[in-house]
């Protein structure tokens, strides 16, 4: 009886992230579909980007992969990359905030716009804050007993995933500063500098984990920890190079005359 109750609870905890992803995706697609009927329209590429992000997230939260991630640290790293970097990048490119603002009735739209202007959003959407939330969070997770604790608590486990999804989203948005309008007007050089710091700090973390055998006390063998540290190192490289390529591709799509100004000045 007890075991059965535990299993149901486990299934629920495993099921709700997938249900939430499905709900958000249906919401996005319905809103995008409504925009297609208006004069301003909505780019199909954005819809595809959102779907891709949702698929990557659904893949990460699919029970077989989650189970693999739970007992294998390399699996955890692969999932972490999907949840914290690749899926959020795709979602950012889908401009969900712009879609929300266009879809909501005026009063609701104003409230959301006011929230986006709030000090809280201004603070967390700054590239440096987003960097600290993202990479700082990884230092805390892997270099303290937090990771081991998360293996025993579903709530903590899901809270950590949510943290990295949100932090990853904020980071990608802060670096790209488009297509949703960013509350900050920072030069391309500054944002590239933050991306540089991000690559450096995550590769230092990878080497620290490899050399010191973190996270400790997980029951994983040292070989497995090292393989996971290397996966984080190279996988993180891939994600951040991809972000840099996207950032510069968007820059190259701007009119020739404006590129120089974007590089150095704060105009966005």
């Amino acid at each position, binding site marked *: 009886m007890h075991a059965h109750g535990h299993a149901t609870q486990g299934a629920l905890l495993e099921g709700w992230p997938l249900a939430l992803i499905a709900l958000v995706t249906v919401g996005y697609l319905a809103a995008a579909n409504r925009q297609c009927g208006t004069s301003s329209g909505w780019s199909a590429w954005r819809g595809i980007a959102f779907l891709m992000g949702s698929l990557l997230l659904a893949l990460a939260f699919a029970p077989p992969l989650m189970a693999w991630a739970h007992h294998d640290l390399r699996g955890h790293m692969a999932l972490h990359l999907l949840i914290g970097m690749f899926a959020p990048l795709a979602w950012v490119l889908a401009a969900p905030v712009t879609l929300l603002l266009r879809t909501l009735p005026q009063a609701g739209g104003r409230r959301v716009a006011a929230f986006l202007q709030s000090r809280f959003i201004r603070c967390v959407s700054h590239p440096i804050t987003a960097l600290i939330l993202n990479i700082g969070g990884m230092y805390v997770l892997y270099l303290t007993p937090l990771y081991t604790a998360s293996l025993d608590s579903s709530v903590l486990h899901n809270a950590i995933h949510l943290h990295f999804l949100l932090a990853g989203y904020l980071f990608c948005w802060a670096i790209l500063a488009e297509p949703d309008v960013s509350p900050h007007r920072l030069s391309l050089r500054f944002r*590239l500098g933050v991306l540089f710091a991000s*690559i450096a700090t995550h590769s230092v973390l990878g080497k620290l984990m490899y050399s010191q055998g973190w996270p400790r006390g997980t029951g994983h063998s040292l070989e497995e920890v090292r393989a996971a540290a290397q996966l984080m190192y190279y996988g993180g*490289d891939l994600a*951040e*190079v991809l972000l840099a390529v996207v950032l510069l591709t968007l820059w*190259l799509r701007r009119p020739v005359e404006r590129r120089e100004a974007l590089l150095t000045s704060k105009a966005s």
Partner: protein
Amino acid sequence: MMNAPTSLPTDSKRSLWAAVLVGIGVMAAVDEIVFHQLLQWHHFFDFGTPAFGILSDGLLHAVELLAVVVGVFMLLDLSQRKRLATPWAWAGFFLGMGGFQLFDGLINHKILRLHQIRYGVDPLLYDLVWNGAAAVLLLIGVWLYRRAKQSTRG
């Protein structure tokens, strides 16, 4: 390749530096792919590395990754604006490759001691070949640089 004589200095300078970045990134990629992955002579981590080495290694790694991306996009930008000075870009490419190779061979391997070229052997010969190759690349770069300078004047 070059349009207005007035815009020559900035263009050649930017073409040179963009290609230097690409050269650094390409050499770093060769190092990573050939020596770390294929030959497996280099190790992911050398346990003789001092703590400072981990930090400088992280910074260098970030330079390598971003150099190639930023360099390629700078060249694309220049070429779209028809302001790419090809002779200068080639000079920069070789100077970047040779400069990085020499930096890696002297600073990383010998001074910071991040890792050696190959383990379990006397590294002297390997160091000589490594840094010799760097010198050859640099000399090609210098030769191309002088040629680019002459062609710009003439």
